């Protein structure tokens, strides 16, 4: 299996305490990896290292030459008042290549096809604020897919969305992975998202564990990751993680 990105002993600090320490992680072609950990554990920093828009203060990031990466940010970070339509957002993906202000007919066709594929046909001229949470998430996914990425990186793709949207996102990502796109995402949602992925990395300043859900979703690994006791149940073949507040029996 070819390695797309290799994080070799990376550490990072934003000037204060170290947020990531000596992380070794390889992302292979065909990976579908979820990064979990508490808030402030370094998940986003790890993703930014993978993306290449943050350099480690220590260690090396090796990236396969000419690797096409696309990124879907947290929808909560988007400025929804920005005057922009759905098709304008998707067309941004070609910004690095093109100098002409207007999109070509073939670009417009490609955008229409992508939006149709993601169930957003007919929404081209809508302002992004006018869409539902799930539709908004799919617009940014369409922008990422416009680049025809080999590796898709998503930051909290199910954060702040309802159950139905979460299901839609999981299905979409599963389909993309099945069609050959490698996927790396960060999430807080262990039961709704991470438990369904083939590979999970637990992070809390350092890489605690990497493995299948059955390997890493254990009480001891989760306690080391989250710094609090957590209970792991199995129900109908599914792993369920619950908080286990101390002192309550």
């Amino acid at each position, binding site marked *: 299996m070819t390695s797309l990105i290799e994080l070799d002993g990376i550490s990072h600090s934003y000037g204060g305490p170290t947020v990531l320490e000596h992380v070794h992680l390889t992302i292979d072609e065909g990976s579908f990896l979820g990064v979990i950990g508490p808030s402030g554990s370094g998940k986003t920093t790890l993703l930014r290292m993978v*993306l290449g828009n943050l350099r480690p203060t220590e260690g090396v990031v090796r990236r396969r030459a000419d690797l096409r990466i696309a990124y879907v940010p947290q929808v909560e970070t988007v400025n929804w008042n920005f*005057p922009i339509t759905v098709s304008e957002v998707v067309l941004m993906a070609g910004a690095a290549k093109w100098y002409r202000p207007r999109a070509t007919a073939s670009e417009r066709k490609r955008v229409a096809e992508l939006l149709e594929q993601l169930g957003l046909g007919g929404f081209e001229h809508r302002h992004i604020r006018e869409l539902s949470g799930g539709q908004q998430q799919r617009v940014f996914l369409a922008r990422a897919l416009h680049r025809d990425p080999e590796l898709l990186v998503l930051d909290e793709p199910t954060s702040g969305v309802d159950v139905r949207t979460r299901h839609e996102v999981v299905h979409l990502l599963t389909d993309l992975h099945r069609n050959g796109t490698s996927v790396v995402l960060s999430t807080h949602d262990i039961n709704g998202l991470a438990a369904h992925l083939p590979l999970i990395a637990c992070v809390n300043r350092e890489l605690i564990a990497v493995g299948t859900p059955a390997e890493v979703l254990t009480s001891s690994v989760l306690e080391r990751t989250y710094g609090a006791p957590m209970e792991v149940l199995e129900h109908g073949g599914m792993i369920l993680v619950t908080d286990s507040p101390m002192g309550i029996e």
Partner: protein
Amino acid sequence: MTLFEPFQFEFFRNGFMVATLAGAICGLVGVYVVLRSMSYIGHGLSHSIFGGAAASAVLGVNFYLGAGMWGLLSALMIGRVARRGKIGADAAIGVITTASFALGLALSNVFGQAKRSIEAVLFGSILGVTTLEVIAVACVGVLAVAIIGAFYRKLLFATFDPEVADVTGVNVGRMEALLMLMLAVTILFTMKIVGVLLISALLVTPAVIARMVTNSFARMLVIAPLVGAACGAIGMVISYHANISSGAAIILLAAFVFIVVYTVTGARGRGNAGGMIH
């Protein structure tokens, strides 16, 4: 006295053309200024350029050369400090630009002979606008349109979503530097007619008006320059007839248009401009 009486004077015709062009250019560049929440940078940069203008007047150096170099340096410093994020961008701008403004004031106090030209820079003047300056401002306009046309998508991406733009291969730092340079050049060549103290309003108001009436970025880039140009042109005529400074007339007119649009567009307009108007 007829409405067109001032057009018989060459100084007014020159001033009128510069004010119209200045309004259009400020409207165009202002779209990026307000959408990037850079209003304070525009305000600070104009104050910073005042320091360069004062130093140029005292040293006898050409205004555009001295103030221009000063402005470009300030713009790049502001951009660099803001991007590094080690200290707050607003604090960095406050220190760099007010120090430059204070230097301009100090030079003005020490060297009295520079006082007249410094006052013109502060409050704007339609007197003494030469044909060469009209041509220079027109060139700045053509340059701004050419830059925005050539880098339209890159600038849009870097404005809307800089982090993803960076990952996608857009050189965000270069786009930010380009915007800062465009802003500095715009302020430098238009502040003579509007004045250092009022130029930031001409950068912000037409763009906010455009945002209230449209949800499209492309249309904003058309509406804001039109509003700015109209305010510049009509403001100049008002300035002559009411015998008030050109900068004050243009900005008061722009503020009046803002109030009208704010009232007429109601909740929809305020919703569109959310984050710009509180």
